[in-house]
C-alpha cells in the first residue's frame, strides 16, 4: 500500500497531519497512527507490527489489530491505494 498522490502529509512534533487535496478532509493522527503511517512506504505489515510491540509495549495480537484497523480506515478515506510493486 502507498499513500495516495492526492494526499499531503506533515509531521509536527512526532505527529502526522494528513490532508486530502481533493476534498479538504484532514486527519490528525495519534502517536500509534503516526508510527504506522511513517512506516507504510518501506516496511512490511509484519515489520510495522514488530515496531509497535517494541515501542508501545503491546502484544503482537493488539498491534496486528491496530495496524489492520488503521489501514482499513485509511483505505476507506482514500488515503491509501494499492502499490504497483509487490509488498515485501
Amino acid at each position: 500500500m502507498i499513500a495516495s498522490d492526492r494526499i499531503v502529509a506533515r509531521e509536527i512534533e512526532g505527529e502526522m497531519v494528513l490532508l486530502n487535496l481533493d476534498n479538504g478532509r484532514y486527519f490528525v493522527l495519534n502517536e500509534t497512527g503516526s508510527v504506522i503511517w511513517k512506516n507504510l512506504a518501506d516496511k512490511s505489515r509484519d515489520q510495522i507490527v514488530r515496531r509497535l510491540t517494541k515501542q508501545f509495549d503491546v502484544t503482537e495480537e493488539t498491534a496486528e489489530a491496530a495496524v489492520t484497523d488503521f489501514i482499513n480506515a485509511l483505505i476507506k478515506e482514500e488515503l491509501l491505494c494499492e502499490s504497483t510493486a509487490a509488498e515485501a
Partner: protein
Amino acid sequence: MTAKIAAIFNTDVDIAADNQGFLTADYIVGSVRTRVFVNDERLHAWVDDLLAFFRAGRHSDPIISFYIFAVDGETALTPRDKHEGRVLYQCSMFTCWERGSQRWLEVPDKGVVWCDLAVNKAVAFVDVAGLDSAWVVGHYILYPLWIQMLKNEGLYHLHAACVSLNGKGLLLPGHAGCGKTTLAINLVRNGFSFFGDDTVFLRPENGAIIVDCFPEEVKLRKGSLDLFPELDFLRAHDPGSLKPKLQFKMQDVFKDCVQVPAVVPDVIVFPKITRERATTIRPKSKAEALGTLLKYCLFMADPSSNNKHFNILGDLVDRVPCFDADIGTDNLGSALMIRELVEGIS
C-alpha cells in the same frame, strides 16, 4: 469575454473591452490589486464600503477583475451546464461547482457567480430584490471566489481575528460564536492594534509569514454589548430581532487602532468563551493546532490551492507557539493575561 459570458449564462451581457458604463474601484489586499466593476449604484456603494480600507489608485492594471451585475428576478441567475462540473463545497447558503479552472457559485434567491481561475476574472449576477445588506453581498457573492483568486495569487485566507501588541502579532482563529470578536474588542480597548475580526490573509514573503489585515465591519452579538460601555451607541441602531448581530467599524470607536496593514504572527490563541470568571490558557500541540486551522479555512477546499494552503498553515504552526484559551467573563483579567502571554513571547 462577451461570448464566454453568453455561453455560460442565459444572458447576453456586453462587458465590452473599454468597460464603459460600469462604476469601478480598485482595491489592494497584500500586493494583489483587484478591480471591481458594478452596474448598480447601491451595489457599488456597498462593495466600496466593505473594502474601503483597501481603496487604491488606478495607476496599474488589476491582477483580478470582478464584475457584478445587478439584475431583476430570475434573469441570468442560472448558469448553463453547471451540473457538468462536480460540487466542490456547499453550505446552507451556497454551493460551488468546479470544472477545470472554472468555478460556479450559486446562492439561491440571491445570485450566481462564475469565475475562471486561469485568467483571474469573475462575473456575478445578483438579484437586487433578494439582497438586503452589504454583508450579504460581501460574504455570499464577492468573497468566496474572490478569496479563491487571492489564494492563487499567494494570499491564503484564515478564519481568524488578528490583533497586535508592540508589533507582535496575535492570531485568534475560531468558528463563528467562539468569542474571537468579543476577545478582539476587549484586547483593542486595552491597547492592542486591530487587523481583523473574522478573516485575515497569510502571505509568504522572504522566508517569513505575513498576516495581511482585513478590517471589515465588526459584527457583535447584542448580548456582548453589556461588556463594552463604549459600544452602547449601537443600541440605538438595533434594527430589531431579525438581526442577531450589530455592526460597527472598529476604527470608528477606537481611534487609530488600525495602524499598519500587515504584521508577522508571533503567537496563536484559540479562544473559547466560557461562563467562568477567570481566563485559563494552556499550550496546544502543533499537530492539533494545524488540524484546527485546517477546519477554519478549508471548508471551502479547492484542489487548485489546497497543497499550498496546507503548507503555509504548517509553516505557521511550526514557527509560533499555540495555545487554547478559555476566556472568562472578567474582561480586564483576560486582557491582562493575554497581554502578559504576548509580551513573554521572544
